[in-house]
């Protein structure tokens, strides 16, 4: 079949996505990137299983400033995916489907993921516990 060259609805390039739609696609993007994060964690554990030299080499790469930035990105993705995932589980049992509750949950998800990320990095960097 010949595919006609005309714009498809809803014109993703010019369409102003509502917040709920933005959060929905973010759930997918963070989910896919988190599998890379878990892969990195696996390689870290693998390097420790190989021996001290390999572990130190891997830690060096991980602690490089770009590595820290990547770690921060993974933590943001993780907490976002976690919080939004809990919202999805509530949807799955048929709760909070109406527009008002969904929009409230949008902000709850964003707020709690920012709080959790900040909290964990404060604990990690300041040795609070």
């Amino acid at each position, binding site marked *: 079949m010949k595919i006609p060259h005309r714009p498809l609805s809803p014109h993703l390039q010019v369409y102003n996505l509502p917040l709920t739609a933005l959060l929905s696609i973010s759930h997918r993007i963070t989910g896919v990137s988190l599998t890379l994060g878990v892969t990195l964690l696996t390689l870290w*554990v693998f390097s420790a299983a190989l021996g001290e030299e390999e572990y130190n080499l891997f830690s060096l790469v991980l602690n490089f400033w770009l590595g820290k930035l990547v770690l921060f990105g993974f933590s943001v993705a993780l907490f976002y995916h976690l919080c939004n995932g809990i919202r999805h589980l509530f949807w799955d049992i048929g709760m909070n489907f109406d527009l008002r509750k969904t929009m409230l949950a949008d902000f709850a998800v964003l707020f709690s993921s920012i709080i959790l990320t900040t909290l964990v990095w404060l604990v990690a960097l300041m040795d609070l516990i």
Partner: protein
Amino acid sequence: MVDSFSQFRSPLRHAKGMGSAKEGTHHWLAQRITALALLPLTSWLVFSLATLSLEGHLEFVTWLGHPISGTLMILFLSVAFHHGQLGIQVVIEDYISNIKIRRSLLIVTKFMSYLLATLGVVSVLRIIFESL
């Protein structure tokens, strides 16, 4: 149209409960249950990584060599790769319409996730047994 076909329908479709995708709700349910399992496992992992000092090799293997943290790490890696693999499968099925590319990518996804999960589990086991 619908009525003329309904005489061929038997209660079997309700009994099997497979729906139009012929796979039932297995994939959907597995994704949710692994998500549920990952809530405590991820919380444990993040809490451990944030609070423990794991700079040196000795600290790391002492931590992971403990039967409890070793068990939790094996569970986390297995469940996380299963969950991730299920999610990537849906993303591929949604966005890749070319059936050959789609099937190849699905197979690569499954192989990679099994490979990495096994590598992680074997590594944790080696750390546990070496620290005995």
